[in-house]
């Protein structure tokens, strides 16, 4: 006989014996949210693809080229953050005390990604790429900006999970929801990089 922690029991009505819940409510809610957000990004990418196909010259005349190399480095940081979170999940199954290191690494790498993307934006603004300057600017700031907002929201959730861990107990629902959100942010980025930057 074995004992498995981290699988909360759900009380059932009618005096039936409690059963382990399939996924915590927080995780299920986050999955629904992420599905809706995935459709948002799918719409953005489709519209951008059609707009780009209709353009006679790309990038539009007078507009800077997007920094492919720097953003590739940022992409590696983000993917590294996803790997760190995966390591945190593995540690979570063994002992919560071992989660702190990888979770903090995921937080730091994710924050570095957002900070470097912000720096990249400043450079592009100085070169004349603005929301109004061209269709490229409009789509670029819309798509990458919405992704950045999601990244900031997911980082806030990761930070909340880290604080709960520091306070002594990280509930599976909180950690799972933060994981789902961050994996979405990490997973959707390579698609955006491929469609927008390359």
């Amino acid at each position, binding site marked *: *006989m*074995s*004992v*498995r*922690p*981290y*699988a*909360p*029991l759900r009380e059932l009505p009618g005096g039936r014996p409690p*059963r*382990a819940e*399939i*996924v915590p409510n927080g995780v299920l809610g986050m*999955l629904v949210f992420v*599905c809706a957000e*995935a*459709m948002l990004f*799918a*719409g953005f*990418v*489709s*519209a951008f*693809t*059609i707009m*780009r*196909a*209709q353009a006679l010259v790309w990038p539009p005349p007078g507009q800077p080229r997007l920094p492919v190399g720097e953003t590739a480095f940022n992409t590696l940081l983000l993917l590294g953050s996803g790997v760190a979170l995966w390591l945190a999940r593995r540690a979570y199954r*063994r*002992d*919560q*005390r071992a989660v702190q290191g990888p979770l903090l690494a995921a937080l730091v790498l994710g924050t570095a990604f957002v900070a470097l993307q912000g720096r990249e934006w400043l450079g592009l603004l100085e070169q004349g790429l603005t929301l109004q300057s061209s269709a490229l600017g409009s789509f670029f700031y819309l798509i990458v900006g919405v992704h950045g907002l999601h990244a900031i929201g997911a980082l806030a959730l990761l930070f909340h999970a880290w604080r*709960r861990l520091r*306070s*002594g*107990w990280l*509930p*599976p629902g909180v950690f799972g929801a933060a994981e789902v959100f961050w994996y979405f942010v990490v997973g959707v980025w390579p698609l955006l990089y491929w469609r927008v930057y390359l």
Partner: protein
Amino acid sequence: MSRAAAALLALVLAAAPRLAAACAVCSSGRDDETQLAFLIGTIFLSLTPLFLIGGVAYALWRRAKRLAADEAAGVIRLPERRAPRPAGPPGEPAAAPRPAAGALRR
């Protein structure tokens, strides 16, 4: 409309796809690249929700199956551990924290 008329209409539309694809807003027929972009966009937007919902449903189904198998095998599941209550006013002891969950695995 009779079945024969419906079949005839379908045949005409199949033979003349440009009539069926005539869209006032999507500038189809402008050039091959634009048409391809519309085609890719349509396929992408059609399949994405199917994969998303299908993927989530499959993951939940697999997890439910695994939990049922665990239950049948007599695996004991511990209830969710709550954070220890902070110390109250003097004289009232704080709740003792439970041991680390990892220590309970056999």
